[in-house]
């Protein structure tokens, strides 16, 4: 376990990022910070996926001027790219909703701006 630690640093970082994101989502009442929490959660998942795709000594699967060496199957990279696109759309939508909530209620606090409960 310990001797592999340098190689596993990205996984540790991904888990730490996820912890940070969940901490923000749970304890931060500011709506903009909630959006940031989701973005960080998304980044942590992206980091996790990209790390999965790393193969020591592999080269990127681009044949244009390719160096010698085994090529990696870029499935996780494709997943990451898709997730980035989706995260952009999600953040844009949430931010526009946050702006509208602010217009209506005049606050960015998730407790004060809430109108429905029970």
């Amino acid at each position: 376990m310990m001797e592999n630690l340098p190689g596993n640093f990205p996984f540790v970082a991904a888990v730490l990022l996820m912890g940070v994101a969940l901490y923000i989502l749970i304890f931060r009442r500011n709506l903009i910070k909630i959006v940031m929490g989701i973005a960080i959660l998304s980044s942590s998942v992206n980091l996790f996926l990209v790390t999965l795709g790393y193969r020591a000594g592999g080269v990127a699967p681009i044949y244009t001027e390719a160096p010698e060496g085994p090529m990696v199957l870029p499935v996780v990279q494709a997943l990451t790219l898709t997730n980035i696109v989706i995260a952009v759309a999600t953040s844009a939508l949430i931010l526009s909703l946050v702006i509208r909530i602010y217009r209506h209620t005049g606050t960015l606090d998730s407790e004060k701006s809430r109108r429905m409960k029970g």
Partner: protein
Amino acid sequence: MATLIEHSSILIIAIPLLAAFLTPLIGMASKKARNVLVMASLAFVALLVFALARDVILNGIHVYTLGAASPGLTTPGGGVAPVRIILEVDAISIFMGITVALVSLVAAIYSLSAMKGETGQNRFYTLLLLMVGGIFGMVFTGDLFNLFVFLEITSISGAALIAFRTRSADSQEGGFKYIVVSAVASLMVLFAIGLLYAQYNSLNIGALAAAMQYTMLDKIALVILISAFAMKLGGVPMHMWLSDTYSVAPVSITVLLITASQASMYALTRTCFTLYGVTLDSAAVGWIIIAIGILSMFIGVTMAVRQTDITRLIAYNCVCESGFMLVGLGVGLAVLANPEALAAYGITAISGAIFHMINHALFEGLLFLAAGAIFYRIGTRDLNQMGGLGHTMKFTAILFLLGALASSGIPPFNGFASKILIYQSVYQFNPILTIIGILVSIITLAVFMKAFFAAFTGASLPQYKGTKEAPKTMIAAMTILAVIIIFFGLFPGLILDGIVRPAADALVDQSPYINAIMGAIP
């Protein structure tokens, strides 16, 4: 025709998406042409779904490989893992497809008059078609990552549609809550997919199921997947977003949101039964799902009783009805490893739960549409301000009552047919669950009697003297649902043997699903 059926599984997903991108272009030229396009595309999709359903029930699993030289070529080179995007439609997928097709058509018909006079209708129909395409994608895909993508498409377009009425602060809040909850849930789903891919180097559900070892990482992935899908379908204690969003969305969208939740339930069953299947520690996972189900039933219905907002009341009732399905599926899952119990009552419990899915979408849809018709005419959802509406809105009242009776499980409507299946089979597993279920059903009736009497009966109030009956298109949409409800109620055996039993059989046996992808390799 044979070619059309061969390609129908992708056409069912692609035609709504194509129509969605055409809608803004055509809508600039003519509103009428746009409405015709929306209706025609959804009707054509519904026809394709029925044609495909017949084919799937008769000829078995339908596989479609995107971009390959032929649709059935799932594993290029023979024997290696599938790499292309594969759609796989078996009996349970097509069952969900039928539900979505019926409900989306009704929702679109209802929107025609409900959205009249609102601004940004082009965007509304674009998002609606995107959402329909997304839900179809969720239930037809044979690939975990595509499941995630379609889940996100559904939730993003759904959130934009919930917040469609920009002038209402509640709608904005509902949309915000929906998208936050969905984003967290689907990102966790992606994390779980990453865990699975890391071990088995595949994203295809069939290939993963064939290689499944049920290691520690698989368990973590299973827990994440179950919690995330349970959150998306509104299982207690993760149901609180559901009442906030269902009650504020335009009602035609709420009806689609119900099917989106059903699609999440489909994903949950697909995960438990097909992806993990026999490797699963079925009793423990089954009891987790049963626990969520029982909590949903009880807390959902008791919260529904005290609501005074009519759509919020129905939304809590949705939570309660999902509980019934979860209990049925959980009992089926708990006895999955035990062939005798499975044959004796497990398969019946699963059939009841699956039958309840389509019934749930139909009668809750009817209730929401009727509540939406009231809102359209009198401009409030508060039961404390309603009264005596039955004098002027006779059809709406009758249709609401019909939906309420079906939801409470009163014979001879369809809700009774599916609930009795769940009661009888679950009783053999654990009688206490059935007793709770019957109690919950009784309170459900009380819930709807409160709503019905507060809204429709009593002397006609002076402020609603001039209220007119709901527009004809709305009545037509509700009547379609009501006719299907009565038909399902009067001929439950037909539906059960026709589409529900094959779906239940497809769930409990994962090998045909795997073999359709991996070929003859066991």
